[in-house]
């Protein structure tokens, strides 16, 4: 089995090229990256979302080998960015969390949306976040926090939605 690497939050980690282990399990079990929460392991809840080369993915569905040679950013790296910090501030200010298990995943995705820079109608924002399940908050404060963080990007009219 050949060797490769995955960049996790700025550190290169060696991996086997054909390792089919889910990225989320590798992060948690092998690297003790417990900031990545796994709620379902079947791509349905979004809690384990990380950025893979800057794009949010449910890390429970990504075979480790597919991340080879790529950059994985967990909530830890995301929060070191200015945008991530802005999103976290908005979530804290809006009290947009309760049990907190789904929270890092939401912050990763909203930070991605902020960096992407495309304007979002309220309906589009709902759709973007609908891949993240939250059982506690009812989403209302999360949506407010996301809108706060996105600022002008979230100010668009809700056309069809």
């Amino acid at each position, binding site marked *: 089995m050949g060797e490769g690497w995955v960049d996790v939050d700025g550190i290169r980690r060696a991996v086997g090229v054909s390792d089919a282990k889910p990225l989320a399990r590798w992060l948690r079990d092998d690297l003790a990256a417990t900031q990545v929460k796994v709620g379902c392991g079947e791509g349905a809840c979004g809690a384990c979302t990380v950025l893979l080369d800057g794009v949010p993915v449910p890390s429970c569905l990504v075979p480790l080998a597919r991340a080879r040679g790529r950059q994985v950013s967990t909530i830890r790296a995301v929060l070191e960015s200015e945008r991530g910090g802005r999103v976290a501030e908005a979530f804290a200010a809006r009290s947009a969390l309760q*049990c907190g298990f789904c929270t890092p995943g939401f912050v990763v995705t909203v930070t991605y949306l902020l960096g992407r820079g495309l304007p979002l109608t309220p309906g589009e924002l709902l759709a973007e976040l609908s891949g993240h399940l939250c059982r506690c908050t009812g989403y209302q404060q999360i949506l407010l926090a996301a809108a706060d963080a996105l600022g002008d990007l979230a100010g668009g009219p809700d056309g069809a939605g």
Partner: protein
Amino acid sequence: MRSVTWPGALMALAERVDGRPKLEGRALYAADAVPRPHLFAGVVPAPAAPAAVTVDPVPARRMPGVVVVLTPSDLAARHRDARWCASPHGGPKETCMLAAHARYAGEPVAAVVAKSRAELRAALAAVGVRATAGPQPAPSVLTEVAYGAELDEFETALAACERIYAHRYEIGPSPFGFIEPVAIGAAWDGTGVCQIWSCAQSPALALPEVARIIGVPAGQVRWHPTYVGGGFGGKDQISYEPLAAVLSSACGGRPVLLELSRAETTGCWPKRNPATIDLRTGVDRTGRILAREVILTIDAGADHGHSPDVADNGAALSAALYPAPVTRTVGRTVSSAVLPSGGFRGYGGTEALYGVEASLDEIALDLGIDPVDIRLRNALSAGGTDVARQTAVPSFGIAECLRRGAETFGWSAARSRPGDGGRLRRGVGVAALIDTSSPAQGPGRPDHATVACRLDAGRFVIEVAAAEIGTGSHTVFAVLADRVLGRYGLPIEVEQADPRTFPGDSGTYGSRSCYVLGNAVTSAATALRQMIEAQLALSSAGEAGGTADRPVRNLDTLGLLRAEGTCSASDAGLVAGAQFAEVLVDTWTGAVTVERVCSVHDVGSLIDRERAMGQVFGGVTQGIGLALTETLFTGPGGVPGSKGFLDHLVPTALDAASVTAVFVEDEAGGPARGLGEAPVMAVAPAIANAIADAVGVRLRALPMTSERVLDAIEAMDTQQPAGGLAEPCPAPASPRSLSPG
């Protein structure tokens, strides 16, 4: 658990004390806190039940990476024979570590420990299990409690009523749906101390029971406090802690993490309570209730667990809400050879109120009375008596909740808006609710809590044994302590203490945090302030000029001070509320969209608006799931068949309604009451009533899926009832047949 800092009096109250650790992924849940490297454990579920199970561990033992495979016969006799206790928090009674005779499909019959997750999964699949299910036993009544009038008194009163209604409502089984999967860790250290990491909601209640089962003194169990990733009553009992401890012991004490997959968490873990609610109600023409009977029947599954208490609480709450001259309620549990039921948020109240509030709506429509008015006419009011517990009710703002809600929601205008008869039909519904703030059952059965506050190195630390399960309870404690100690300008931290520090405290459940623990925090903070003031008086007496106006500097010299505070609640702290919902029903597909909800709660005194709103938004959204989509999928004979969140449809951001939270406070300045469970209650009947308003059909079973709504609409169109679950409304002219359904 790391204690967390709240910035203290000089800062705004905007942030939760646990906000930053959770946002940053630093908050440790059970599976995060188990020391790495650890071994991986899993359980083999019984494939059928009731059945004697034969387990062949040999193939699994030969698999790579396997450390231990345990069957019931591998357990030491004392572990094999140990049974969980009768306390609901002690887990479903008669539960054992590994079952040789499975009482329900999904019950653990073998356990495996392996070096890696992949090796564990392969080994679990290799364990040979044979079970031939015997016949399903006929449901039998396990427990029954009754409140209010005797049956014959009720029958006489009912027969004398001008109008009589009988209704039956049903609630199907459903998973709890907390996002953190079930995870239990265990390890033994060199001194014979068993260490536990668990997602359980009530560590202080669970610890002694775990110690008893594994056979060590409670002092030799160290329960590491961790965050809980959502509970909603579903983690309110011990579960695999004893098994994890035994597995770790079999592996030389190495840390073992027993983690259920999402499908196992959904299909093999206690479910929400399926229920049947039978009601008979006698009224006069003005809608005054003269005689009422509510029979709540909870399907406990194969095991008692919380169900007897759930049925009891549901019966007690439904008795108290409408104290008719003759009121009789019954809470009953029946057994069946399927997955045990837990105690879902609302603890029987959620289930009972679905029937009570939907039935009352049917009666109001039949009599031509506004649904708000019929509730105002019949509901319990302050100064009344709790029919169930026979205690005086000093405060109960149901009328204020209904009036404020109707005003905020725009009830009258929304109700009188004419429909256009098109594909999309709009409707509104209301339902009232009642809940408790504490499991206290009167002076003889109080609910007790002890906490401590300490001044420690320039900060205040609140020590509580109760877990922060997400409700914001620890933030509420910081706010309450700040009211007493904020004058000193020091940071306030909340620390989840070792449960042995406060053995009397039962944990986080039953909406008790504000009412019981909150008052204990105020008491501890007050005692600490008195200690501080006494010390300051002494030191300023000794110092020329004194420093009473500069207390912050003074506290630096005080050293460690610690005060405990207690609260013993003797009454249940009844809370009132009302839910108003507006739905849009697609008559072509049966799809129901909940457009907006106005959720009104009499909280006594509002401590922390932001966190209170969070409870309301979240509870209402759970109520929408309960009402419309959530179901536990099983195969024949109750064999676990769910694929987790792929078929347990919890509301997403797209399903959440626009929720307005309204809080009613006690003008007399009464204590803060509970808000943990109330927001989920009466959401389902408000939606059911709104659907009836929109399309003129009455659904009598939850969840009200698109399929059921469409069936009901089509059945109305052809004037044929659909499977007993729905019928055209308003109800036929009374008196109706007294046979339910």
